């Protein structure tokens, strides 16, 4: 796992990112105590149930070339039978304007509880994958990602 970045460092770099026009797609919401938002979003998704670690693998590069398109794969340990399967997977982020990335509905017909997509990352931050199991329990895995800022010596015109 990559090293932790302290929050002040992060919000500073987020501002730099905005100033540089890198990740200009977000641009509006001010920096704030995002980790709380993230925890709240996950709590709401889980309807207050416990969310435990283990059994979920969130595969995302720890250092990404460009935050506009970051490949992510979520893989959940599950036999994917009618009696015991993954019912849903959600991906959340800490420091984009909105906490949600995507929510997937699946079931035993999937055969394997694995989903890949590409997400946007406004800046370096924590990503969390949460799986809802058929018994109503929740599991999760969090990963910190460092986003390389676009070198602004190159403008786009």
């Amino acid at each position: 796992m990559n090293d932790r970045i302290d929050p002040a460092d992060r919000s500073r770099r987020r501002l730099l990112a905005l100033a540089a026009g890198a990740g200009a797609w977000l641009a509006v919401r001010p920096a704030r105590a995002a980790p709380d938002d993230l925890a709240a979003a996950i709590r709401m998704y889980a309807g207050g149930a416990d969310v435990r670690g283990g059994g979920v693998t969130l595969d995302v590069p720890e250092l990404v070339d460009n935050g506009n398109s970051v490949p992510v794969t979520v893989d959940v340990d599950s036999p994917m039978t009618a009696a015991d399967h993954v019912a849903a997977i959600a991906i959340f982020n800490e420091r984009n304007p909105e906490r949600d990335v995507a929510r997937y509905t699946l079931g035993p017909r999937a055969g394997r509880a694995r989903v890949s997509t590409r997400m946007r990352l406004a800046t370096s931050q924590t990503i969390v994958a949460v799986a809802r199991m058929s018994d109503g329990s929740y599991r999760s895995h969090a990963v910190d990602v460092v986003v390389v800022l676009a070198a602004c010596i190159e403008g786009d015109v």
Partner: protein
Amino acid sequence: MARAIVNVPATARRGDVIEIRTLIAHPMETGYRVAADGQRVARDLVRRFTCRYNGEVVFAAELFPATAANPYLVFCTVAVDSGTLAFTWEGDRGFAQTETVAIRVT
């Protein structure tokens, strides 16, 4: 010109878990971006994706602004019968596109 590319094995054995890969052209305009003229660019997203296997929904997704432009999505399903897989993307401004792919299960 909405386009999609869907990768599904043409044949599979009954009970096999097959991987499906989809790519669709869409800007996934977040609604947070400000254009050169200072105006906020209106949100324009694919909101929902559904995969139906011979009519039955086997996988669905809700997408948010943090899903990258030209959404790419990979998931699995069990090959149960020969027939069709139908993929539907729906979103803002009435966006709707469906692609169907035949699969032969032996």
